[in-house]
């Protein structure tokens, strides 16, 4: 219970700056999330003409009171999804669902595979990882050791 309360408080504290950044973004909040289409780096790392123009556009939109998402949407409308350094949340969904299904299928297959393995009549590995001796070999080792001692 205490852990749950701690988690909720921590999540609330973390959400405050994220909310502020969404509602009242700064150029710095956006410049490292937007790609310059000619130089393929984020615009905070570029001084190409289009990167400078994009920064000016972001400043204009911030002054007009747009939220971070609204500014991003306007940039996507002009330059396509590739203008965003990170794909939108919806774009993550399909690969995540695919990876989840794939992992589930692999887990089921691995389980069935393990269950389906026949019980081995071969001697299992000993604790040091090497194969255990057969009774015949064990007997011969004892004989050799006895001869050595004699």
């Amino acid at each position, binding site marked *: 219970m205490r852990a749950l309360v701690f988690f909720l408080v921590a999540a609330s504290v973390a959400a405050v700056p994220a909310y502020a950044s969404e509602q009242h973004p700064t150029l710095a909040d956006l410049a490292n999330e937007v790609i310059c289409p000619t130089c393929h780096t984020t615009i905070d790392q570029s001084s190409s003409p289009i990167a400078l123009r994009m920064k000016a556009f972001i400043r204009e939109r911030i002054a007009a009171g747009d939220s971070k998402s609204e500014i991003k949407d306007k940039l996507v409308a002009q330059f*396509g999804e590739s203008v965003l350094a990170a794909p939108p949340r919806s774009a993550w969904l399909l690969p995540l669902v695919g990876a989840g299904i794939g992992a589930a299928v692999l887990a089921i297959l691995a389980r069935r595979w393990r269950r389906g393995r026949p019980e081995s009549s071969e001697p299992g590995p000993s604790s040091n990882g090497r194969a255990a001796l057969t009774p015949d070999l064990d007997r011969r080792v004892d004989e050799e050791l006895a001869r050595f001692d004699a």
Partner: protein
Amino acid sequence: MARRGKLILQMAAVSVVALLISLFAWQLATKEQARGLTSALERGETPPAPAFTLARLAGDGEISLASLRGKAVVLNFWASWCEPCKEESPRLESAWRRYRDQGVVFVGIDVNDFKGDARKFVERYGLTYPILHDGQGSTIGRYGVTGFPETWFVGRNGNLVGARIQGPVNDSELNEYIRRALAES
């Protein structure tokens, strides 16, 4: 069952690797195709012009390269933030007015640009030929465009002719390559 499971796992692993290799090969092939166009033109060949369909900057419909078959096409890649494009635009407009009744179409492709900025540019330089908007630059990869402005010439049969002009085009280049584009049928 064990063997079957193992086989499925192996197939899945092979499929993933095959997918990654295919993606890599596709990317290489696209780059190679763009490089190949320039090399082919330099050898005097006339490779097919890469197809495209783009929205008009003015917002009224789309134009595809295929729809211009039968006409010589001057393809000019530009952007409003490109300084040399400002120098070139009046020359292109003047040539367009000279050639438009002779089966020649000039098409400006505004790339990696804000539509609003491009519209102001068009208005400022009085451009009357069709201008298309390619905000995300989907065409520049296919043509291997490395900077702006850049101009290509497409013959009446849809094949590229002449040479790619990197930087502002001059009148003698325009006249020469339009003549060749009109001759290609």
